[in-house]
């Protein structure tokens, strides 16, 4: 496991308490998991993706990540409609381990962008990790 100081946690994105990250890009929000989450899960072997067009509330489960010996649920940081899923992950789930920020998982069209503003910034997320 990485030490907290070794984690790659970019400044320009937001984080959820469930260790997802979210990044605004025009009128959509791109979502993935944080470096902490990919490190804790280990080698990811399978990503269960939602269908494009599905609608979830913030905090709802939208998919799962599997490592060899664990399953971890994915929770949507910002509610809305799924407008894109990263199909490359179907054949290459390791993209998330290689770089969890280029290895995005879904794009969502938010219902309420105000939810994004309630997510944690880098500093607050670091505090959360230290507390855990």
């Amino acid at each position: 496991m990485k030490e907290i100081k070794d984690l790659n946690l970019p400044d320009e994105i937001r984080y959820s308490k469930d260790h997802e990250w979210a990044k605004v890009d025009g009128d959509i929000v791109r979502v993935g998991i944080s470096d902490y989450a990919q490190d804790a899960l280990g080698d990811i072997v399978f990503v269960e993706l939602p269908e494009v067009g599905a609608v979830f509330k913030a905090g709802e489960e939208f998919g799962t990540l599997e490592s060899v010996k664990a399953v971890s649920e994915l929770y949507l940081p910002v509610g809305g409609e799924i407008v894109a899923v990263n199909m490359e992950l179907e054949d290459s789930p390791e993209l998330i381990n290689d770089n969890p920020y280029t290895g995005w998982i879904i794009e969502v069209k938010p219902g309420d962008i105000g939810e994004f503003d309630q997510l944690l910034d880098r500093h607050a997320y670091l505090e959360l990790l230290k507390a855990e």
Partner: protein
Amino acid sequence: MRYLPHTDADIKTMFKAIGVKDFEELFRTVPEHCRYSGTMNLPEPKTEWELNDHMSAIRSLMTVTPDHTVLIGAGRYQHHIPSTIPAVMSRSEFLTAYTPYQPEMAQGTLQGLFEYQTLTARLLGVDVANASMYDGASALAEALLMGIRISRKKKRVAVSTAIHPHYRAVVDTYFRPTEFEVVELPCGENGRTDLSSLKGRDDLAAVALQSPNFFGVVEDLEAAAAAIHDIDGLCVACFSEPLAFGLLKSPGACGADIVCGEGQSLGIAPSFGGPGLGMFGCRQQFVRNMPGRLVGETTDLDGKRGYVLTLSTREQHIRREKATSNICSNQGICTLTAAMYMASLGGTGLRKLARLNYDKAEYLRQGLQDTGAACSFSAPTFNEFVVEFGDDFGPARKRLLEQGIVAGLELRKFYPGFENRYLFCVTETASKETLDRVIREVKK
């Protein structure tokens, strides 16, 4: 006691090391009110000699013995088992090993299971087969639950009444506490499942047929699969006699999505109904919805080929209440046995043996028909078939039993209205002479 190596001196040494004075102190965390009072009321311990006598006396109570020819299948088949199979499969390296959780020291079991999965997939015509379920009946129940999972929204499945009655009973057991419903499809005059009621039923997640079915009748699986796919359901094909696929088109080739059934015929003795193994396969796209263990190929640190249990995240030890099934074990040694049997037969042998079963069954069927008995169903059969006799069959059946032949299974116990109908099974183990004797006695 020969299984318990501790001497009194050993026990004393160990008490001392642990820091207790006796066994009582070792069990001090078991409260008094939970204690077993007195001694368990069991027979006195037996020496190996006494056990042999005792078991021999129990065996002598069997009035149908290995010397009998049992012309009954109905889910359990008497086939010849080559002596190589018990000789090799009783090797304790296979028999006394646990589930292969430490793959480096269980490559024998693992490669054996991988080969089983592959031969089974080829036999059933599916993309992938698991490392086995408990038996054919529970495999069918699990297949139907899997169908519900795949459909996501639907809550109903259908099963043919021509499926083994015990299989259907197990399906009912598994479904009873759920919110899902099982409906039955009737059997037509020709012995095949009547699919006419399927039209327009868009509420069925899966539809199950057995082929050859309980009456031995070969279903028209291709037509069935097409009709089931038309209503956007999954076609589940089950079986109790896998040897049939040496001759018949495989269920997968006919379009079945999930194929499951009993593998006892493949080198395993009837043994009063168990153990055998549940064979289970499906299309590649459904593999993550599949229950049961799976073995996969990989490489070691040096790049050498090896085998491991894989896709475990489907299973209960990881996903717990969200697992695809609660199943933990498989049928282990029976699975390896089935693979060894398939390997011993080979493609050529399997075809020959299946053909022999078919020819012998046809011989008896024709012979009985010639005596005036009526074949109940017109559709083709494999090594089982149903015959309807007059009221005088009872005495003939009794005479045959005295000559060491069990002539058929009475069906009225399973299907009300099937008075005087009997289900016969003929395998390669029945000689022409025996079959002729049956025909002769029926003629009398």
